[in-house]
């Protein structure tokens, strides 16, 4: 157990077209903002190395297309995802209402082992346009609670433009995903037992 492979976390960003998925990814990874991003077609990703609890983690952050029809490619894009970031635009109530469908579609297509406890996080983007806000904070709070009363999803209000809350949000999702990954490691022992090697492993693990 001491010998762990390099940790790679695959994080998928989902949400309606134009809510700022590409901007959030670029703000987090490159600390840059531009209002010159083209619409994302298909999927793209950037990686960032971070340290969590003294552990080196490579985050592979996947930016996806927001148009609904690209959801049909989800099986290919979401495979092996460790966490999912749902994004809406606080000035656009429709993008908030679509969160449900993004979440359901993700769960259906990624097919995680334990859908009820899959690590999700919700970001309400564009808080720099506070005066145009049309989705009150309470609404998203309620939504998160309704999805999972015991362990409500974490949510952050962010601004990719002004870098508000972005770092915290991605740190949080990395932590949750890492924790979840470790829990799964404990509950799911290796599928096969190689008897010739088992002896070495057990003698190493018990001390």
């Amino acid at each position, binding site marked *: 157990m001491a010998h762990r492979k390099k940790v790679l976390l*695959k994080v998928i960003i989902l949400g309606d*077209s*134009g809510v700022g998925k590409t901007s959030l990814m670029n703000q987090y990874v490159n600390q840059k903002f531009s209002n*010159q*991003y*083209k*619409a994302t*077609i*298909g*999927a*793209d*990703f*950037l*990686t960032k190395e971070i340290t969590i609890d003294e552990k080196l983690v490579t985050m*592979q952050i996947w930016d996806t*297309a927001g*148009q609904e*029809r*690209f959801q*049909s*490619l989800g*099986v*290919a*894009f979401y*495979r*092996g995802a460790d966490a999912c970031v749902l994004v809406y635009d606080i000035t656009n109530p429709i993008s908030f209402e679509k969160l449900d469908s993004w979440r*359901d579609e993700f*769960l*259906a*297509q990624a097919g995680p082992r334990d859908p*009820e406890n899959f690590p999700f996080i919700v970001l309400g983007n564009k808080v720099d346009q506070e005066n145009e806000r049309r989705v009150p904070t309470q609404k998203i709070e309620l939504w998160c609670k*309704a999805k999972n*009363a015991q362990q409500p999803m974490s949510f952050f209000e962010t601004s990719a433009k002004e870098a508000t809350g972005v770092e915290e949000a991605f740190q949080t999702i990395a932590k949750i995903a890492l924790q979840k990954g470790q829990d799964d490691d404990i*509950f799911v*022992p290796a*599928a*096969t*037992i190689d*008897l*010739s*090697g088992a*002896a*070495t492993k*057990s*003698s190493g693990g018990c001390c």
Partner: protein
Amino acid sequence: PIRIVSPPDDCNGRVFLPCFPTKYSLPKPHKWLEKSILPPQPDGFTYQMYLRRRPRAFSEIEGSIDKDIPRTFLTNSHDALRRILIAFAARCPTIGYCQGMNEIGAVLLEEAQGNEDVAFWALIYLIEDVFPKYHEHSMAGLHADCALLDAWLKQNEPFLSHHLDTLGLNIEILCTTWLVTCYISNSPAIFYQVLLQHIFQAPSANDASKIPILTAFGVFRQLTPLLQVEKEAGHVLRHFKTFFASLDSKEKCTAFLDKCTSLWVQLPFEELRALRVAHLESVHAMFDARHAKKEALRSQKLSPEATKEKRHRRSRFGLVTLPSPPKSPIRKLSLLGTNVRKSWMRSGSTDEEPVPDSLALHFHLLRTVQLFDDEMIDSNEFSAIQRQILTTWLDNQQTPEAVASRVHELKSSMEVLDIDSSPPKSNTSLWHKAKAKAGLNAWKLRSSKPSERRASAPRPMNLSPRGLELNEISKSYYGNEFSEDQRVSRKLELISQSIFD
């Protein structure tokens, strides 16, 4: 030297020859977009007529077009672009507007020097005739072409295909943008212009439709040596980006497209069409399966109460102690028997909020299970009460169809719960699996050839104290009469016995 990889059966692909010099030249260097090369429109509709029509789901389409136009940088004529996209959606409701069409439209407008009419028909030619339904709502054509590229890659570059797979990459991730935007959002202007020139000057739309997909295959061929040694998915992606960025002069583009040309002259359109049809069939089968899965998920997904129920039901077989059930009505039920049952059911959950019938039934059955767990009722009472709950519930249902469907739903949900119910259970199956595996290993070792045996036999140094002990035991049993291999296999059997029995 021609390297032919034997194709796997039934994968609907093709083995391509290596790229060779071709004499497929470009007729004219410039002005590739001319009205004369566009197909005549037999239905007699004009751009102006489509402009006057409103597409179905107008506001939705208008909304997504308006979001994308300000972020299309290839054009300054935003209004013209908007008009041709909306006219396109009016003409072709099965496609409407797909992201990426804005990029294509902008390039066409530019090339047509602002002549919307020409750009509009060129767009229709590309999207409707050349691309095999990439942009439709289901994107079925894109899925099929990705599957086809995947098959080609598996056959022609098996190592690369496997390597990409281990990095978590696939054709859909890599090629969607290339195909949907006709390489416009990936490559320098000179490259996509030359490519579009090829497409528009191909003898027919059929010939043209070979070009985008085979160019993608050509890119993989070109980059295979670089890609298959990369250890990280990000670096693979970077190679593609660097490669496209390097196609910045006419010479480089022509050199690369020459190679692609040798691919597209190898593949007759009829073959490509047949391959596409075959892959489309599996794509539709996949869509159906996914749809069924989604329906199943939806029916499984009940209110939060249901999740609670599920957890309780799980714990019946598990290690978790159950929260004690609400005492009063339950005692009454267990003491007074069936007469109180109805009042208990009423006091249950049906009063205030409207709870689906099946959910109420679940709830009542669950309570019975809890009673049984707490040893308040014995198994006979348990089954009698369950039976009565079920009969009452069934009596309350109005139609026979409803009864049938609900019972089916209940059965299937109970089955699902039983399968994933408890940790001990899954452990058992795991142990059984491991046991079977151990037996198989021992058997393999006994029956395999000596050379293979040596390879798979464990080195004694690797054994733990426990393993060494077993080694001693086996030695004392069998002495040295047994050959090394027999002893090893016998030992494996002993180990597996000691672990599992």
